[in-house]
């Protein structure tokens, strides 16, 4: 039964869209810096999924390479970002982004 074994590529894309939307939701609705950060990671993952899906469709390895790069950059980003969060927390004892707004006004 081929239609049972074969998954349409579009489903993968839709899945990645859903995940991306969830990431945005987290980014928009959450107030904890770390959670927001994690939502960003979620978005990155969603994009990666579509990359890999396309690389499967095009029978090319490039998409996976991009995913690889995204991961590496995400790692770097996480390192720096978390360091920043640590420093911010050290200085103002809060993780709520709305309260870290001394540059505003």
């Amino acid at each position, binding site marked *: 039964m081929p239609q*049972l*074994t*074969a*998954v*349409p*590529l*579009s489903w*993968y*894309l*839709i*899945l990645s*869209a*859903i*995940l991306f*939307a*969830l*990431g*945005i*939701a*987290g980014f*928009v*609705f*959450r*107030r*904890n810096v*770390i*959670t927001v950060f*994690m*939502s960003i*990671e*979620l978005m990155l*993952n969603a994009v*990666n*999924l579509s990359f*890999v*899906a396309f*690389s*499967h469709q095009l029978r090319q*390895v490039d998409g*996976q*390479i991009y995913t*690889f*790069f995204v*991961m*590496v950059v*995400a*790692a*770097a980003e*996480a*390192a*720096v970002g*978390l*360091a*920043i*969060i*640590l*420093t911010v*927390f050290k200085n103002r004892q809060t*993780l*709520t982004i709305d309260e870290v707004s001394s540059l505003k006004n």
Partner: protein
Amino acid sequence: MDLIFFLLFASIAVGCGISLVVQKHPIASALSLIGVMGSLAVLYLLLGAEFIAAVQLIVYAGAIMVLFVFVIMLLNAAEEAPSRKTNWPSRLLGVPLLAVFVALLAYLFDKMSPSLGTVTFGAFTTGGKQIGRSLFNNYLLPFEVTSVLVLIAILGAIVLARKEID
């Protein structure tokens, strides 16, 4: 078989994603994110990207998220306090917009799907060998540059996070 796996892990991923958003506690969110990543890794396997799947686990779940959990523990982050300032645009627009967003994308992809074709397990499998070959031939320069970037990031993290020793 593929279909079953896909549906299973896709639903796991979505569920974890939702819980990432709705969970009040950072640790819970972190764990659900790890869940997403794990299921994504399985999906990568289904897509035949073995190497990427492994790296997904090692780098994301094994390194990045550990870092997150570590920081959360270190700061002993508590549950989110309800925010004082409400920013109405995100409140009002957010959810419907997201719904529309997903709906439109889904519609588009569905329209496209005949031209996109289907995914069959094992139709296209890439292990470390192909990745390595491509990475060190076509993508050598980006690779090197990325390594420099990572180095810089490490330095930056150290500089940021170290205590000022006077």
